[in-house]
């Protein structure tokens, strides 16, 4: 009897392999969790994009908010911009991290398309981007009221991403304390 079962071993192995490969079809290899989840926002001191002095991590921390990494050279950022504006209009605090960009081009962009950001950090060399583990704009980080990074989304934030992923976490953090 045991040897009869042994005949099915290749079938079992095949089924197992097929299961793994099938699972792999629906996985996105580009989706990497940030190494900074549950860690505080790295310390920084960078100029404001509007030229009005410096901004440090303590200036942007204090409420549950989104930190959006964007640049004018980033095509997808233009795609997500109207949705960010909608979120900002609905009262979601969004901090902008203008990543490896030219200030003049970025200011033009905000003048032309609208400015959904509470404040914009001008990270011209990408130093804060490096500390955050940014590997391409757009990226959006969800910060809690203590400034701890709770989630990172790589790619465009649209209605599907917001309602499916970010909003539930955002509400949870709001409920845990930290007025909007």
């Amino acid at each position: 009897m045991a040897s009869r079962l042994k005949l099915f071993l290749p079938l079992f192995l095949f089924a197992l392999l097929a299961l793994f490969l099938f699972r792999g079809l629906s996985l996105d290899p580009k989706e990497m969790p940030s190494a900074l989840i549950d860690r505080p926002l790295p310390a920084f001191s960078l100029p404001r994009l509007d030229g009005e002095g410096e901004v440090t991590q303590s200036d942007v921390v204090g409420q549950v908010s989104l930190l959006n990494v964007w640049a004018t050279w980033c095509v997808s950022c233009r795609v997500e911009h109207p949705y960010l504006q909608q979120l900002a209009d609905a009262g979601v605090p969004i901090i902008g991290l203008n990543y490896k960009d030219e200030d003049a081009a970025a200011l033009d962009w905000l003048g032309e398309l609208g400015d959904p950001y509470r404040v914009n950090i001008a990270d011209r060399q990408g130093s804060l981007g490096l500390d955050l583990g940014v590997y391409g704009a757009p990226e959006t980080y969800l910060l809690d009221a203590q400034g701890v990074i709770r989630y990172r989304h790589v790619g465009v934030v649209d209605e599907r991403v917001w309602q499916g992923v970010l909003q539930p976490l955002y509400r949870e953090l709001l409920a845990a304390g930290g007025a909007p």
Partner: protein
Amino acid sequence: MTRAATLCALLLLAAAPALAVIETYEFSDPQLEARYQSLSEELRCPKCQNQNIADSNAPIAQDLRRQLHRQLEEGASDEEVLDYMVARYGEFVRYRPRFGGAALALWLAPAALLLVGVVVLVSTVRRRAAGQPQQLSAQEREEVERLLRDGEEP
């Protein structure tokens, strides 16, 4: 014909720099340069996932190379550089992940598979060695002779 061949050879030579990464760094010590080479080949580009940062032209790979150069010039050890990168980009950036955690399966799988192979090999060889032609019992011999004589039908 020879001219064409010479021209081809010259053009090929001219194309060689295209294979090299764009920017070059000056090192105060050739040993640092060697470490830069080996580390940039071990660090994986987060954007273009199947390349190391030495091969990639992605902006993030350029940034990481610049950072690597700076850290090495500042006297960081290999371990410090890797810790710095892993703290920001996760274990993902190392082509040679640390022993432990989720990477444990990767480290141990080859040894486990080798072990399975050895077990299978040994058991097969033993069975072959043990499987000497057996003597038929008297009853079986009678049965065989009857079958040979009368065919299948009893």
